[in-house]
């Protein structure tokens, strides 16, 4: 096929789109669905991690994924994390720890962190660093980002332990 209709489930919403075979997932999200929180960083070579989104829960580089490959799958972008005006605990931790400077890497960082914490609720600092190794930051030096992810893990854990009042 060179162009075909497909359904995409993005942030819990379904979209019917006519996509050409040569459209990347990044182009679909940014240009078609106006979800510009997902960033294009390294000229689509898969090196910087700014375009990281979750596809069926797995951290995926949208710039080197064909949109067609992501059809019928659950896609989560940074726009899908905040619920009813409340930031996700990872986002809140990034704010609280000053882990955002220019902000360009942040959406990818947050989603890589979410992929880690969904699988491993109590990671070590080393595990956090390894999980974020595919996300380049040119401002912060990473220390505050790692601290934020570790703090978010604690917040999420305590939320779960006190009866699951955190809706994420």
């Amino acid at each position, binding site marked *: 096929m060179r162009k075909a209709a497909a359904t995409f489930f993005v942030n819990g919403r379904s979209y019917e789109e006519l996509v050409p075979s*040569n459209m990347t997932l990044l182009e679909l999200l940014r240009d078609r669905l106006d979800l510009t929180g997902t960033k294009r960083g390294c000229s689509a*070579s*898969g090196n910087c991690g700014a375009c990281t989104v979750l596809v069926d829960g797995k951290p995926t580089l949208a710039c080197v994924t064909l949109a067609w490959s992501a059809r019928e799958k659950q896609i989560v972008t940074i726009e899908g994390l905040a619920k009813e005006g409340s930031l996700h605990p990872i986002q809140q931790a990034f704010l609280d720890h000053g882990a955002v400077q220019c902000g360009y890497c942040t959406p990818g960082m947050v989603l890589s962190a979410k*992929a880690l914490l969904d699988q491993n609720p109590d990671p070590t600092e080393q595990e956090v660093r390894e999980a974020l190794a595919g996300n380049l930051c040119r401002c912060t030096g990473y220390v505050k980002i790692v601290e934020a992810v570790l703090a978010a893990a604690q917040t999420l854990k305590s939320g779960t332990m006190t009866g699951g009042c955190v809706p994420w």
Partner: protein
Amino acid sequence: MHRTLRPFELLEPESVQEAVQILASAPPGAKIFAGGLDLVSRMTRWQVDPPCLISLQRIPAMDFLEVGENGYLRIGPMTTLRSLELSGLVRERWPLLQEAAHQIASVQVKTMGTLVGNLCVATPASDMAPVLFVLAAQLGLVGPAGSATVPIEDFFVPVCQSILEPQQIVVEVSVPPMPARAGTAFKKLAHTKACIAKVNAAVLVTVEDGLCRDARIALGAVAPTVVRAHKAEQALQGKPITRRLACEAANLAAAEVTPISDLRASADYRKRVAAVLTQRAILAAAECALAPDAAAAWHALAADPPTPAGVAGRTCGAGSQGEPA
């Protein structure tokens, strides 16, 4: 609207046979599309311009990772590097595969990239290729003329090429069981841990009665393809693996490689590092082969025991698996 990728036809066969048929009648330059990581990134830079992609993503059950009837580990063409890294089966019985997969790039790259794709790219800097060399892996190919099995040592052709015909598809990697009393190690040097290797080295040694019975050493990123260091392997045969012997063998290995200078490292530096990594890998593999119970007996035999440095936290499942019952 601007598109990063040039237009192409995308075909989605639903069986391997159909994929082979489509590939046989596809226009020149058609590519097999599995994880797509390397292919799409090269297409975005317009380094390749395939008129047609034949996707394996719709074919059921192509991401298998299991032990076959013959005891071989079977790895499917859609099995990702991340699956290898996280598999308990691999960690326990083929820890070398897990050790190398763990050191590749990033979680995203490993989540998207497949082992077979990594091999078909045929970069001399692949971290998985040297490991599969020392594990004596085989590749299952299918094409219009039928199926074939080739040892991985016959697969690569200098530079960044393989013997894969344009109409063939790699459908399986199979890895024999680890030999009894074998230990393995993988060492890599890169700019950062997420970067491509400047040099890497994989070693498998079999130790019996304190003596090296078999050694397999393969180095990556130091020649147009992966290098088996045969002279270094022979130097270890029949001897206790001391630090001095490992050093001698490592120097022989470094003499066998023909690296280039590029932006990552100079040829001279690569040669020196090849020796260092090989020595460390030999000692770590020997330690692993002897771990845990046999180590004491071995220390009594060898005047110059190997250093435990750098092996902390490694899985030595194969070593204990190889212990006599």
